[in-house]
């Protein structure tokens, strides 16, 4: 592994989320005519009943409710980069109230699927997904249960 001074933090995909670890958010856009939200960003409005072509970039809400989850017990194919040794991981789907859309993502590190309850409040974070041979950390958005659960 090369020196850590050269190691970088790299998003796994450009332009889908901010790298602000304190207050991260997904980057979407919104149609100026019908008001529909899009994540990832649409090229033009995807509502077939709308003639809008102008979209404004927006931050997607960081908080939503758990719609469903699953735990993967088998090693996925590449390009998944597994930890050594491979451990099962959880994938969740979160429903965002304001934008009225759902987003998938991994459950944040350090959280156990045993803690999950469908409908619970969930918050977005950005975290390393894997580290490459050069020591670069590849970041992605993930979801974690909120410490205080509101109603």
């Amino acid at each position: 592994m090369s020196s850590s001074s050269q190691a970088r933090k790299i998003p796994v995909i450009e332009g889908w989320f901010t790298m602000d670890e304190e207050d991260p958010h997904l980057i979407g856009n919104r149609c100026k005519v019908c008001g529909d939200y899009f994540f990832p960003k649409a090229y033009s409005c995807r509502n077939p009943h709308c003639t809008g072509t102008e979209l404004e970039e927006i931050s997607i809400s960081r908080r939503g409710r758990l719609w469903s989850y699953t735990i993967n017990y088998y090693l996925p194919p590449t390009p998944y980069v597994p930890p050594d040794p491979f451990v099962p991981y959880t994938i969740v789907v979160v429903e965002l109230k304001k934008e009225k859309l759902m987003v998938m993502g991994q459950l944040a590190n350090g959280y156990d699927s045993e803690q999950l309850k469908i409908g619970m409040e969930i918050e977005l974070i950005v975290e390393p997904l894997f580290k490459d041979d050069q020591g670069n950390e590849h970041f992605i958005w993930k979801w974690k249960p909120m410490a205080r659960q509101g109603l």
Partner: protein
Amino acid sequence: MRDVAIIGVGMHPWGKWPEKKFVEFGLAAVRNALEDANLKWTDIQFVVGGSTMYSGTPGVLDGSCLAEEMGWSGIPVINHYNACATGAYSLDIARSRILAGLCDVTLCVAMDSTPKGFFGPTETKDPKDLDMLRFKMGATNPTYFGLYARRRMEEYGTTEADLAKVKVKNSHHGIHNPYARFRKEFTLEEVLNSPMVAYPLRLYEVCATSDGGAAVILSSMEFARRYTSHPITIAAVSAVSPQYPDAIINLPRVSTDSTYSVVPERRYPKYVADKAYEEAGIGPEDLDLAELYDLSTAWELDWYEYIGLCKPGDAERLLNDGETALGGKIPTNTSGGLSSFGEAAPAQALAQVCELVWQLRGAAGKRQVEGARVALGINFGLQGNCSCLILER
């Protein structure tokens, strides 16, 4: 609309043959279908080939590869891919050609030679490729099935035993199918003790990846009546894209459309089935059997509701009452389903057509649904490719 007949069907068994080239699966299927229809290769006037993703450029052009192996006969050959709904789209193209009066006899064929284990993305250098992204995240196909299954448990109180019983039922059907890959009767204990793959789904509850091939020969009714007094007719081909907004995370997406400005009237799979019923002029109460898209056990239960066999939340009751087993009111996956076959994506809608035709002819042996007259087949694939076929005797 005038009727179009199905006059020949044929398959290569589903399984794993790493030493075979994909075109061999199609050749066997086509030869069987020609024999079934009592036709020669040179009687075929138009070919629609369903492409395979896993055999490079020849796989994309697999209809052409097949035609070359059968012997170039100077006819048009279409190559196309619509994921798991490929076969339904093939049928739609092939019947349109007949309905347009351009020819009398058309052939649909597809074959697949799949990698072992999970499907992975097709390698691409596009840094924005969504399929690459979701696999990086670890969202395999069974991830999606697991998410739907866990949600179903939450909404309707489905138990893990309910899910396992779908596999048990389909395995009891599949043992009687010589074309099925897995011909073993599973017990509830075996299914429930199999390793967890994507909670709450276990190894025997998610579909394997298979090699296989299927072929279907279509003709005008005038042509069909020269050969048989009881042709099978295509009552409906519903191969339609989703209606915005698509509010469930479908493969390969990692998000849904927003329902901010438009509230969806119904879910996409229900819409696809509704369109088929509309074209056939029948309803779910008229069905004698259905081949459903059981990529997971839970998904088969969802389909009971989407195609209207019962109302939402009643699928478990239908299953537990034995209504969807052979001998029940509406047997589902009499072929053994994808759970007995495994996925050979472009070929599986045509494989369903083979089963439906055998059933409607009364030629399904120990799997026979007595007096079957109306049969339905469902497929659901990547990127908004869902289909529903209805055949009648």
